[in-house]
């Protein structure tokens, strides 16, 4: 059941490129205030070098004090201490600024990026949403965004900071004794390599574990939700699922353990290198101190000690930050990849609505993006403004696909679709504005009742009166009035408490959405009555003509009795329209439609 880990290992993305992208994001998302604060904060990284220098002076003077406790020496100590305190204070102030600035920048960039992502994703072509590659990437990118952006922001800032600190401290070290500085730097290199390797691994691991982690989590979640708990109890298979979960957990755990063991080993080894080199450096400075000619005081020992600690830390941070940046580089690439998918072109959205919203399909052939099998074959049909058309056919015959193409959610590989005389792709925005929908799997949004209806028409502001009218016409006002907060009742569980509606009640709300589009020219109803009880369903059919008015109505339905309401019935079978006509005509033909009709009717007639 687990995927066989055939994951393509992503190539690295250039550090420089990533830093550049981060810088660009910084300027796009933040104002001059944030950037100014940030700069001040970063300058604070130059302070440690100054402090280490002053420490050297301080301890040299202190050494002097033991030999010569005169007031000049004391004065020197006092001055040095005062300067040192001044720097400490400055560091404190700058530290506050930097902390605040980096948090601010993090939030701004986070929000900016998420906002962009949401804006883009909602508008990309629907066919992309159906490919696992895209929706997995999307789920991963949006889920990881906060932590990854934090990582890249803090790593980038840390990188610049470590660079500043490291160079200034390194310069100090060099000015003291170049051999020592070199040795210290050399000692830090294995640690850096290791850190870099580790972060590469971490990214790979996060990616590899992603589907595994999700699957394990998915199995466990079955134990937290009432619908699966109910089934497990009746089916008595909780033990089986527990075992399944345990297996997955074990797999994940073993993978993690392997990673940890390697990590620990590398870490210890690089530490040994590190501190050995520092030890050598200290030894060298001791040699100099003990050499009466050199005039080196104990302060130099403190300086070397201070430089060693600081520099080693800076080098490791530097490379850790570089790796942090690199790891995020791959994430950023994925993010920008998502932004590059083609958006739908909603042309004509602001044009005046056409008088005649005729729809034609001319020699249309279509298959879904990831298969070769044509789901629609040679579809030719014209639907005139005002016609009431019913679409029937067994599951998989192409009905829903036909409607999806009609909405412009996919484009046919062959043939063309027109609306009001123009190519659909050239007037997509107009067509969408001119059409109202009820999909079979319409959304049950966790909003107020009023908002759930209001979203039927996002092209203009709806008045409260319009919403209530739409609800009345959809036969929803009745049950809404019985709710405590009526139209302001929050559906779902995002607010305190929880309100659920039955399937039939939701169906009526969905239809109310459709009705709010008074100006629509076309109405598309997909299994509109599937969840309604027989009486409500009958009412809908009776009022069908009145509800649809002079709009074109396209109805997909399994309930063949209702197709009699239509001016024309299209019968789909294996991707083609095999029969067409009124109910009477099709019955007399005694073909597929007649057969399907009989299959249902037989239960109701004698």
């Amino acid at each position, binding site marked *: 059941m687990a995927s066989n880990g055939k994951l393509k290992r992503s190539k690295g993305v250039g550090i420089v490129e990533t830093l550049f992208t981060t810088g660009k994001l910084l300027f796009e998302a933040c104002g001059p205030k944030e950037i100014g604060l940030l700069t001040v904060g970063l300058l604070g990284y130059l302070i440690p070098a100054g402090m280490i220098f002053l420490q050297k002076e301080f301890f040299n003077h202190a050494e002097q004090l033991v030999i010569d406790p005169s007031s000049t020496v004391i004065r020197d100590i006092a001055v040095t201490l005062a300067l040192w305190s001044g720097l400490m204070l400055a560091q404190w102030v700058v*530290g506050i600024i930097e902390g605040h600035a980096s*948090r601010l920048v993090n939030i701004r960039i986070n929000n900016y990026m998420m906002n962009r992502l949401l804006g883009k994703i909602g508008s990309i072509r629907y066919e992309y949403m159906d490919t696992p590659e895209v929706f997995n990437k999307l789920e991963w990118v949006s889920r990881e965004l906060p932590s990854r952006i934090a990582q890249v922001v803090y790593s980038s800032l840390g990188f610049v900071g470590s660079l500043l600190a490291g160079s200034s401290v390194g310069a100090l070290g060099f000015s003291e004794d170049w051999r020592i500085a070199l040795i210290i730097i050399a000692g830090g290199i294995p640690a850096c390599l290791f850190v870099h390797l580790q972060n590469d691994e971490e990214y790979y691991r996060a990616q590899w574990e992603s589907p595994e982690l999700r699957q394990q989590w998915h199995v466990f979640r079955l134990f937290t939700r009432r619908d699966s708990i109910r089934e497990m109890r009746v089916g008595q298979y909780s033990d089986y699922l*527990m075992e399944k979960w345990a297996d997955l957990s074990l797999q*994940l755990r073993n993978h993690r353990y392997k990673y940890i063991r390697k990590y620990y080993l590398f870490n210890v080894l690089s*530490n*040994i290198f590190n501190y050995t080199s520092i030890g050598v450096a200290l030894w060298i400075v001791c040699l100099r*101190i003990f050499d009466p000619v050199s005039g080196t005081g104990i302060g130099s020992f403190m300086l070397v000690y201070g430089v060693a600690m600081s520099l080693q830390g800076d080098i490791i941070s530097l490379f850790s930050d570089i790796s942090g940046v690199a790891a995020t580089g791959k994430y950023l690439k994925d993010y920008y990849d998502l932004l590059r998918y083609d958006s739908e072109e909603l042309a004509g959205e602001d044009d005046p609505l056409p008088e005649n919203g005729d729809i034609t399909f001319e020699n249309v052939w279509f298959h879904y993006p990831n298969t070769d099998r044509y789901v629609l074959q040679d579809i030719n049909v014209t639907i005139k403004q005002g016609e009431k058309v019913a679409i029937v056919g067994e599951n998989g015959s192409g009905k829903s696909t036909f409607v999806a193409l009609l909405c412009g959610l996919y484009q046919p590989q062959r043939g063309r679709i027109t609306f009001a005389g123009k190519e659909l792709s050239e007037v997509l925005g107009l067509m969408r504005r001119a059409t109202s929908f009820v999909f079979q799997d319409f959304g049950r949004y966790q909003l107020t009742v009023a908002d759930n209806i209001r979203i039927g028409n996002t092209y203009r502001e709806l008045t409260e009166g319009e919403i209530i009218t739409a609800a009345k016409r959809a036969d929803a006002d009745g049950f809404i009035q019985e709710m405590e907060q009526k139209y302001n009742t929050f559906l779902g569980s995002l607010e305190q408490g929880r309100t659920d509606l039955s399937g039939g009640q939701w169906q009526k709300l969905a239809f109310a959405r459709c009705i709010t589009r008074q100006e629509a020219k076309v109405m598309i109803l997909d299994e509109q009555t599937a969840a309604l009880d*027989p009486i409500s369903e009958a009412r809908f059919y009776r009022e069908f003509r009145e509800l649809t008015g002079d709009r074109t109505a396209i109805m997909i339905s*399994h309930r063949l009795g209702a197709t009699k309401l239509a001016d024309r019935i299209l019968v789909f079978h294996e991707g083609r329209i095999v029969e067409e006509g009124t109910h009477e005509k099709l019955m007399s033909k005694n073909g597929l439609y007649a057969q399907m009709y009989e299959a*249902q009717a037989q239960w109701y007639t004698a």
Partner: protein
Amino acid sequence: MGQVITKSRALKLLKKLKIFDQWDAAKWAYRQGWEIDKRNFIFWTVLNILGALIPVYSLRVIKEIIDYITANIAAGSLSDIAWRIGALCGLWVLQSSYHIIPEIIKYTMQTRYSIAMQRRYATFVGTIPLCKFDNSEFAAKISHVGSTCNRLAYVMGGTASFIGAFAGTVGLFWLAFTTSWLLLLIAAVFFAVALVLTGKNYRQHYDFWAVAKLEIRKQDYYAGLITGRESGKEIRAMKLNDFFRNRWRTLTEKLSEMQLDLDMKSAKVNHILGLIHLGFSILILGFGVWLLRRGDIMLGGLVLIWQLHDRLYSSMHSLVRHYMYTLSYLPFMAEQKEVFEMVFDETGLPSREHKEIIPQDPETIFRLENVTFGYNPDQPVLKNISFTVKRGETVALVGDNGAGKTTLIKLLLGLYAPNKGKAFFEGMPYDELTQEYLYSKMGVVFQDFKQYHFTIRENIAFGDIKQLHNDEALMEAARKGQADKLILAQEKGLDTFLGREYEEDGLALSGGEWQRIGVSRAHVSDKEILILDEPAAKLDPVAEMEQFMAIKHSLHGRTAVLVSHRLGFARLADKIVVLKDGEMVELGTHEELMKANRHYAEMFRAQAEWYEGRVTGNGF
């Protein structure tokens, strides 16, 4: 008596300082952790303690090195220094290796405790009577505990780290004690201030999250609508993208403000502490110089004082940090404790034992006598229902949406116990039965049956898990459920993975195809009793007919209860139970009920009129 007073007084004091007001939750958590794995916890804690004590030694070594240098600068003998420097480096290596330990603890402990707690949770869930879940708050709580039950790991890990940091701090305090009284004083003052400030800050964090939790869920919801697949069609067709994005944006702006505000408040604590530390640093350096001048200490001593002061600061910092970290998870522990300690009243429900059951009245499968039931006993969903189902009968349950059909099914299944009245299975009350006995006799498909993203094999075998590897039995069930053609059309047959979330080549099924799989699940092992809730709602007319015919033919003398709002099908039944607003209003065969010309007849005609040529709509 005196002891009790002092203990509760102490607790009250701690509570007032807002340091520790979730002692019960902590106790419970530690008990769990201890039961699960005491060995590892002790091991890591001891390691933590040892590691935390290293700085105490490395500071001493530095002091000695410096003293040695200053003392022997004239003498010029270096050899003794070499091994001291070597020792120092060795200690440093140990110390930094010690820093990795928290990482490792995180991984090993996390997995161990998480897995154990999740397992406990799953077992616990098996004991909860199903009707409890109809209370949405309860269901949400259970779900939340499930999602967060692995956090015990953080509490245990945080505690291990805390103990280590505490030992380290004590060691440094001892070193300060032997070095200089002022140092000790400063450290103590600092510690007290740190504790108070951080305690206050913790409260603010907690309050923030209590409020923000709901807002964040909403924020995630709106984002999820756009990035998820389910709403993709509607978002494009109905231009909903901006609507949801604006909602998300408003919430995000508000939350960001709140978050920054909170961060500033937290940071303030650190700033104050930092400033205090700074002041004390200057003080202690001056003091050290004074001691040096007096000859009380040597230069090494000065270095020690300075370094020790810094070390104490960072050690206390990390101590407080670990403390707060652990504390922040206690609310979750409190919630879990509350849930895990729940005891449920299981009267009227079959037990989870394994025992031998002998049916009292094998010919009467179901008998309900004046059964009334409601999730909320004040608002009954079913009122005064009485009927029987004999062995071999086919009963149809019909009625409007919300009339109570599905609830009645759950009562028959022993998932709920009636509030009033009695329910019997094979002549016995349900609580004399076992789950094992009852469910081994029933094949069930729910209206909203669960679609598992596993293999087809598993999806079907969940009807009787013992048949998981019995291909023949599974295909037989599939044949009865009209899913066999679908399976044979797949290359991997029964082992085809369904759903594309975890497998790139998983198969995406349509609603109708899923429904066939669901019905096949009910057919596995030809259980004596078949319960089908809307088995064909998603199928097209021809398939629907075939499904109903297949069900009819598969019955051969078995007992069946069928729910469908497609009334034509009810004609297959020996008996029709008609529900309206929770009451049983009619009972009889199709002919009898049509003759009676009441609610059933009205519903039937409402559906039938569309097939009979005479239509009362406009335009014909």
